[in-house]
């Protein structure tokens, strides 16, 4: 090529001028009406069947109205027609990524009503499996949020490394997810031989993988430009909306039910750090979850060192009748605070179960949060809040 372009003229612009140019209206006389855009219920970016009706002025969102219910399966009515063990089978499909963690608060409530305590080995195994499901969920998030922002490679890494954790869960419980492993009074079975050393090897791989994500995604300039200062939520407003879990901790609220709530499982005996971030933007939510993944891997290693031997189920009758009463049991699930308010009248099944799911409240902040955002930022914010439709719609 022999042609050379003439040199570009030097244009001096103040730093703020580019932003003004981007926001300038095209032509004052071109008065356009608002456009209503329907995102979903089938859309690669909505993580399930969420429909978001946004009203746009050009690229800016004026108002957003999430329409949910496309995955409403009527859980609270179904629990009234099932016995306690049958309910355990059903509820691990609420948050379908961290299935084991959904069963724990319900079984905990039923055990407290029956005044039965699971033996220590069962509590340790429950803790380990809960943390493994937390790692599985967060690992998917780490790859999938990067995918929403535009990077394809981290998604493959996350699916590859997730297989190690799913192998462990499958070896112990028989199911990759939806394990249905909890029983009232303990667990169904003991761990297979050799599981503990496999788990240690898998956790080492997870910790390496987290370092990879730290380099590949968190340190990436494009990722930072797309997520910093996007979707800022203040801690007080988030709590008033009922936002919980990593979302609230990313807004600076230092609250973790594993440490601060009623003591459950073996968390009082483990030594772990609760990660918070002050910014409250999408980057903070990603960063907090990455640190929590590492922390969960370390907690699993600690629990594997401390696990006692012994029985894995307390003595309970064959037909389980839970005495009358009500119990509220809440846990720090991967998506946030999950709780079950169980009303019992002494029958073999519950009278009413109120399921408090984390994503329901996390998503209720969207009408407030999305006002004034640009359309690509809507995708980033949805990805960073990390909801599961089964958890919203129950």
């Amino acid at each position, binding site marked *: 090529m022999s042609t050379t372009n003439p040199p570009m003229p030097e244009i001096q612009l103040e730093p703020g001028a580019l932003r003004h140019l981007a926001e300038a209206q095209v032509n004052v006389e071109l008065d356009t009406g608002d456009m209503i855009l329907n995102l979903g*219920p*089938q859309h*690669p970016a909505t993580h*399930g*069947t969420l429909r978001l009706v946004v009203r746009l002025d050009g690229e800016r969102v004026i108002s957003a109205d999430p329409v949910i*219910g*496309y*995955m*409403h*399966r*009527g859980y609270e*009515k*179904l629990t009234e*027609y099932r016995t306690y063990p049958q309910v355990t*089978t*059903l509820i691990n*499909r609420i948050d*379908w*990524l961290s299935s084991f963690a959904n069963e724990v608060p319900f079984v905990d409530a039923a055990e407290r009503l029956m005044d039965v305590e699971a033996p220590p080995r069962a509590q340790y195994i429950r803790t380990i499996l809960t943390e493994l499901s937390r790692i599985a969920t967060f690992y*998917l998030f780490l790859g999938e949020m990067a995918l929403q922002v535009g990077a394809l490679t981290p*998604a*493959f890494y996350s*699916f*590859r490394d*997730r*297989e190690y954790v799913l192998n462990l869960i499958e070896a112990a419980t028989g199911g*990759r*997810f*939806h394990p249905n492993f909890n029983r009232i009074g303990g667990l169904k079975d003991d761990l297979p031989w050799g599981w503990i050393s496999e788990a240690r090897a898998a956790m080492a791989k997870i910790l390496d993988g987290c370092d990879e994500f730290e380099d590949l995604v968190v340190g990436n300039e494009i990722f930072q430009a797309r997520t910093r200062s996007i979707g800022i939520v203040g801690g007080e407003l988030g709590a008033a909306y009922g936002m919980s879990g990593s979302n609230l901790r990313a807004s600076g609220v230092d609250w973790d039910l594993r440490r601060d709530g009623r003591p459950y499982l073996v968390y009082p005996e483990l030594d772990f750090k609760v990660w918070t971030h002050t910014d409250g933007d999408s980057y903070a939510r990603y960063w907090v979850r990455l640190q929590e993944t590492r922390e969960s891997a370390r907690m699993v290693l600690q629990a594997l060192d401390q696990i006692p031997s012994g029985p894995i189920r307390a003595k309970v009758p064959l037909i389980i009748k839970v005495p009358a009463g009500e119990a509220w049991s809440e846990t720090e699930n991967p998506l946030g605070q999950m709780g079950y308010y169980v009303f019992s009248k002494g029958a073999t099944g519950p009278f009413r179960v109120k399921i408090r799911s984390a994503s329901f409240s996390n998503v209720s902040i969207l009408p407030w949060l999305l006002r004034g955002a640009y359309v690509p930022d809507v995708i980033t914010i949805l990805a960073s809040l990390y909801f599961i*439709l*089964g958890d919203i719609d129950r």
Partner: protein
Amino acid sequence: MGLVERGVLSKPAVKPLTWLLNYSRKYSLWMFQWGLACCAIEMAAALAGPRYDMMRLGVIPFPASPRQADLVVVSGTVTDKMAPAIKRLYEQIPDPKYVISMGSCSNCGGPYWDSYSVTKGVDQIIPVDVYVPGCPPRPEALLEGIVMLQARIQNEGIGNTELAARWQGEPITVGGADA
């Protein structure tokens, strides 16, 4: 073109041509991403996971719109609120199209068989070719379902009238008195 509609390709004389057409069709299925619930995670593991890797079978999950797809895998619970959307998207896919129902929720309602808001099986709305049972089915089970579908595609129009029926979007009768 009309060769298929006119029944030319079902004649025994052009069997190698039909075989070649089916061979190339079965190894270039464009799958529409229709993940609804938990089964979608297993479907994603089958697609994106290096261990199961559906793309080596020729199934590519990235059509830009339903109008460019020819396979839809319904994975997850179908609710009454979602059913019209499924029907509308299914109608947008051009013929010949195939449907795999993955998981027990879309096979028959699954664990929510008594719910007031769940459609008991996606075959109440759209015709299904392959049912993959499980809750959720392992990624290998989905791969087996796809291989079964590919075997079905290979045999279309060879000794039966399925090829023309599929091209024109007519319902396929399975079994029957002369099977």
